[in-house]
């Protein structure tokens, strides 16, 4: 950057005229919709009741139901991201493999997931895998009958033990969906590495593991971190779909509160806001991480 630009550059968060105009236009539009909806749709806004409802602690004195939903979504997303990454990386590497035994099943799975609506997958998943497979493995008894006192950390990471089976289905479902997309990102990342990098690693006598671990993986990760961050954010949003199979996350909780109170608009706007804050927070976090991992590319 030239000295001139550095001096005249404005502080980062100052608004210019265009920003102000856009804000004004946005506010007018919102005001108009609000006005129209209060007369045209005959909807009575009741923000105070909505806010009260959201912040009222549960009957047993624990966290308000709405916030339990938020935490549940965060929990689902966290574990979902971890499992989706593991499955996605394995699938992506298999898809890139020269060995057909690995490549073909991975390809089939990825194509299947990417070409059926997520909703359909959720139902198939629920009736076949969740209803049949978990009992088959005997996991349901194990999960349901765990009665020991939970430590605080365990509680935040996994929630109440009575809902573990529920949580597990949700995590499986979300991560199996997301893994197919992550796999494609991983594969394209692997394909983006020059052949010469593999050959140089080979010529130096590096083992297969060292080659992946120290040469290929760091480059792939740095190349795919932007699409991967996007995928993580999608996962948070897409996790709302498991509300349909009664996983008690933010959307499910939102539905319940909205329907029982009749404060449809207010509650759904709050739900939207909560997702917005989580996703924006994540994207800020990822752009910070990206800046630090791409240092070597600076001249």
């Amino acid at each position: 950057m030239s000295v001139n630009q550095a001096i005249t550059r404005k502080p980062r968060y100052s608004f210019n005229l265009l920003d102000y105009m856009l804000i004004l236009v946005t506010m007018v539009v919102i005001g108009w919709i609000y006005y129209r909806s209060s007369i045209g749709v005959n909807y009575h806004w009741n923000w105070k009741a909505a806010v009260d409802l959201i912040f009222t602690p549960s009957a047993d004195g624990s966290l308000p139901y709405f916030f339990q939903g938020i935490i549940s979504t965060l929990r689902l997303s966290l574990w979902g991201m971890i499992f989706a990454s593991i499955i996605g990386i394995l699938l992506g590497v298999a898809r890139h493999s020269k060995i057909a035994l690995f490549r073909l099943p991975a390809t089939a799975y990825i194509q299947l997931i990417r070409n059926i609506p997520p909703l359909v997958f959720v139902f198939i998943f629920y009736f076949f895998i969740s209803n049949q497979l978990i009992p088959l493995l005997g996991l349901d008894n194990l999960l349901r009958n765990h009665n020991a006192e939970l430590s605080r950390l365990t509680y935040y990471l996994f929630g109440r033990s009575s809902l573990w089976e529920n949580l597990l289905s949700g995590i499986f479902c979300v991560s199996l969906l997301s893994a197919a997309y992550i796999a494609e990102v991983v594969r394209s990342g692997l394909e983006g590495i020059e052949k010469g990098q593999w050959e140089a690693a080979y010529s130096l006598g590096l083992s297969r593991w060292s080659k992946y671990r120290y040469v290929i993986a760091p480059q792939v990760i740095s190349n795919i971190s932007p699409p991967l961050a996007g995928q993580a954010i999608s996962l948070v949003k897409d996790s709302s779909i498991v509300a349909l199979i009664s996983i008690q996350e933010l959307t499910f909780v939102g539905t319940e509160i909205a329907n029982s109170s009749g404060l449809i608009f207010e509650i759904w706007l709050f739900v939207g806001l909560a997702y917005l804050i989580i996703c924006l927070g994540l994207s800020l976090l990822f752009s910070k991480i990206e800046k630090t991992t791409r240092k070597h590319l600076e001249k």
Partner: protein
Amino acid sequence: MKKTNGKAIEFEHVDKWFGAFQALKKINLSVEEGEIVVICGPSGSGKSTLIRCINGLEPYTSGQVKVFDSLDLNQQKGKVGMVFQHFYLFPHLSVLENLTLAPLRSLKLSKQAAKDLAMHFLERVKIDDQADKYPAQLSGGQQQRVAIARSLCMMPRIMLFDEPTSALDPEMINEVLDVMVELAQEGMTMICVTHEMGFAKKVADRVVFMDEGEVIEIATPENLFNSPKHKRTKAFLNKILAH
């Protein structure tokens, strides 16, 4: 002089097919330990394919390639160093880390030993002051010298060079060739694919001319450049000397 220590590399009737295309035709070539062999020939004549058969980067279709009397080319990894036209340094690692990676992971040296080794070779290619930079911060000539040092860290007994100066700006070619000449004078066994005639005349024991997947002519540099026997060799030399 330095030779007659035994055979380093032996090609016997080596054929290489890419699908229906034959890239190497009945190659016979043997290289003594300590020998410097330069390979030249038109683009697409199979030079890269030939030297890639030596370290197993390219599996050959039939015939035999022996390196130090062994057919198992995988065992030779690291013992046969390779330098590429486009360097292929690891961009996410510093210069020093590029050099220490293989000694740490393959030779299982200690951190200190690997670092000492790396610094020793960086000094030899006169680039020790750039040890903490990343490859993207270096010039092409510097990157190629780092790549050579990186191979040397594995203590190879043979060095393969595939057009090491073709991607460089003219003013950087000599700094790389100087390193190669020094290496040659120390007795390293070297196979170099290059069109640098000055280099060939200075250090090569033999020059191999290839065309269309065949070895056409093998001779000392003086004989091959001054009195080529084969007309395809003549035609090629005329072309590269024309400008």
